[in-house]
C-alpha cells in the first residue's frame, strides 16, 4: 500500500469538499475558498471528531427513553394500552409472527444501537490510532451512512397509525413521548455519521505507518 501514503494532505494540497477540485491551499492554517464553486476549503472537516462525539453521545442519551417510554397509546373503549418498541416486538413474537418481530427488532432496536456502537468504535480508533484494517473501518462507515435513513421507518409507521386510526369513540391511537426520542436518535445518528470525516481513518493509518513503519 505504498500509494496510500500519497494523499492530498501529505502533498500539501487540499481538495474542495464540494466540487472535488484539487487546489493548493492559500495558507496552511486557513486554506481559503475554492475558486470554482466558492466553498470554504478545509483540509479535514472542522472539529469532525468533537462534533461526532457530541452527536453520538446525544443519540445515546435519547436511545434510553426511546426504548423505555411508550411510542403510542391505543385507546379502545375505556381501556388504554401503551406500547413500547420492545413491547411491540414481544407482542409480535408471542402472537406468532416472529419474522415481523425480527424485522422490528433489527430495524428499530439493533440498527440504531449498531450505528451508535459503530460510530463510537470509529471515533475511538481514529483518536487512539488503534491497529486494524482501515478498509474495513471505511466499509463500516459506509454501511452506517446507508442504513441510517431506514430507521426512520418506525417513526413513519407511528405517525401514519396515529393519523389514520382515529375511530372515536371506538378506538384511537395517540403518539407517546417515546417516538420523539426515537426520531431524535435516528436524526442524531445520521448527523453524527455525516459529521464524521472518513478521511480521518486513513490519516490515522498514515500516522500509524509513520510511527511503526
Amino acid at each position, binding site marked *: 500500500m505504498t500509494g496510500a501514503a500519497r494523499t492530498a494532505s501529505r*502533498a500539501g494540497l487540499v481538495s474542495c469538499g464540494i466540487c472535488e477540485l484539487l487546489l493548493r491551499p492559500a495558507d496552511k492554517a486557513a486554506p481559503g475558498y475554492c475558486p470554482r464553486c466558492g466553498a470554504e476549503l478545509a483540509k479535514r472537516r472542522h472539529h469532525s471528531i468533537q462534533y461526532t462525539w*457530541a452527536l453520538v453521545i446525544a443519540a445515546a442519551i435519547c436511545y434510553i427513553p426511546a426504548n423505555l417510554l411508550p411510542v403510542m397509546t391505543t385507546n379502545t373503549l375505556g381501556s388504554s394500552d401503551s406500547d413500547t418498541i420492545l413491547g411491540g416486538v414481544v407482542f409480535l413474537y408471542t402472537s406468532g409472527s416472529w419474522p415481523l418481530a425480527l424485522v422490528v427488532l433489527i430495524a428499530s432496536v439493533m440498527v440504531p444501537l449498531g450505528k451508535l456502537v459503530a460510530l463510537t468504535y470509529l471515533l475511538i480508533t481514529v483518536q487512539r490510532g488503534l491497529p486494524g484494517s482501515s478498509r474495513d473501518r471505511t466499509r463500516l462507515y459506509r454501511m452506517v451512512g446507508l442504513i441510517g435513513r431506514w430507521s426512520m421507518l418506525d417513526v413513519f409507521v407511528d405517525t401514519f397509525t396515529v393519523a389514520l386510526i382515529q375511530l372515536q369513540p371506538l378506538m384511537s391511537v395517540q403518539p407517546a413521548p417515546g417516538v420523539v426520542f426515537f426520531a431524535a436518535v435516528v436524526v442524531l445518528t445520521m448527523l453524527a455519521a455525516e459529521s464524521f470525516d472518513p478521511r480521518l481513518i486513513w490519516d490515522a493509518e498514515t500516522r500509524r505507518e509513520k510511527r511503526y513503519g
Partner: protein
Amino acid sequence: MDEGNDRGNLPQAHVEPRKGLHISVVWIIPILAAVIAVGIAAQRIMSEGPTITIVFKSAGGVEAGKTVVKYKDVVIGQVKTVQLTADFSRVEVTVKVAKSAAGLIVEDAKFWVVEPRVSLGGISGLGTLLSGNYIGFEAGKSHKKQRRFIGLETPPMITTDQPGRQFALKAADLGSLGIGSPIYYHRLKAGEVIAYNLEDDGKSVMIKIFINEPYDKYVIPETRFWNASGLDVSVGASGMQVRTQSVVSLLAGGLAFDTPPFAPKTDPAPADAIFTLYSDQATAMKKPESIAAHYVLYFNESLRGLSVGAPVTLLGLPTGEVTEVGVDFDPKTLKIRGRVEIVSFAERMTARLGKDQTSAGKALMQSKDQRERLMRLLVEERGLRAQLKSGSLITGQLYVAFDYFPDAPKAKINWNSERVELPVMPSTVHDLEGKLTGIITKLDKLPYEEIGEDLRKSLASLDQMLKDADKALNHIDGELMPALKATLDKLHDAVSSADRVLKSTDATIVGKDAPVQQELHDALKEIAGAARSLRLLTDYLERHPEALIRGKGGE
C-alpha cells in the same frame, strides 16, 4: 520515489503555542438531550403513584396490565400483577395507582370487581361487556394511608358521596325484598335496600336502606315504613283489597314510606335511625290509639270466619278490632265456649263526633271512670250487646258488632275481673244460616221422582177425563138440546094458551083483588122465574159445559 526532493521543498513546521482547548457549540446537543431525558425520567419518578395490593376471593376477568381501577368512571390505576396468595386460597392483585389518586388510597377505601350483573332491580355494569371487567373503587373518609386491602365480593349499593341518608328497618321477616329493592315515597323511587341481616337473636331481620336526597328529609322520627312488595291481596270482612306500588316492586319487592298526617312536624330523623317495618300501609299509617279498652266476649256459637284483626263496630262504625280468637273452658261444668278478645279505641268514636261535640266527647273519654260509667249505662240500661255478624256472605268473614237490643235479658258488667266480659247476643247470621239450611234440607228431602210420577199419572187421567167430557158434551149437543127445544116450544105453547085463557078470563075476572087474578099473577111470576132460571142455566151450560158432569165448581 523521490520523496527526499519533495521534502526539501516543503516549509519547515514551527511549534505554535498550544491554544486553549477548543470546545464546540455542538456539545449543547448532548447536554440538551441529557437534560430532557433526565427531566422526563424525573417527571416519571415523581408522577409514580403508590403500588397497592388488593386481595379478592376470586378475580374474574382481572388481567395483569389490562384491567384498570376506576373511580367515578375515571381510571386511577392499573393492575400490574394477578397472582395467588401464599396459601392459594385467594387472589392477590397488585395495582399501580396514579399519583393524582394516591390521596384516595386510605384505609377505608373499598375495591370490588365490576362485572355485568343482572338482577330483578335492574342491570348494572353493562359497559364491562365491551371493555372487560374493571375494579371499582370507592374513596374512604379516613386520612390514614394503607397499601393492602381486602376486596369486596359485591359492589357496595351506594357510594359514600351519594347524597342521602341510611336508615335501618326492623322487620319480622324479609318478605320478598332483596338488595336493590326500591323504596317509594308517594310512588316516586326514593331509595333502595342496601343490605339485610338476621338479628343476633335470630328472631327479626334488620334491613338497611338508603334514601336519596331530597327524599331523605321527609324521613322524620314519626315516619312509617311498610312493605309494598308484590301484589298485596287482602280479604277481610271489609271486602277484597289489591294494592301494589309499581310493576318493579311487583317483581322485585319494595318498600314505601310516608309520614302519617297526625304526626307532629319535626326535624328529619338522624342517619341510621331504626324504624319498624309494617306489613302494609293500613297498619303502618294507623293512628296510635292511646285509650284502648280490652274486653272479652264469650260466644256459644261457631267462630268460624272470625279472624284476629277483624273489625269491631259500634252501630256499624269501626271502633276496634279482634285481638284474639280462642276457646274458654270451664273445668267445673266442662263447658267449652268461644272466647273472643277485643280491643276498643275510644278515640275512634270521638273522632266521629260532630265538630261541636268533639271536645266534650274527648273530655268524657279521658277519664277511666267516666268511660266505665258510660259503658255500664249503655250495656245495663240500653241493652248494648255484642253480636257476630257476617261481613260478606261469600267469604263468610265475621266481625263483632255492638248494637242495641232493648229486649235483651238484663246483664251486669263486672269491672273487677281481669278481662271485662261484655254480654253477647246470639248471632242472627247463624239463625239465618240455620233456617236456610233447614229449608234446603227439606227441599232436598222432597220426593221429586214420586211427584213427577204422580204428576204424570194425574195428567194422563186428566187427559182421559177431558176426553170423556168431550164425549158428554157431544152427547148433550146431539140428544139433550133438541129435547130441550121441544120442551121450550111446549112451554111456549103453554104460555100462549095461558095467555089466551087469561085474555078470555080477563073479561070475567076484572076485580083487581079478585083471587083468580091474584093467583094467576103469582103463577105467571112463577113461570117467569122458571123461565129466567132456565135461561141462566142454558147460559151457564153454554159457558161451562163441564158443569153437567162435575157440578157447579166453586169459583
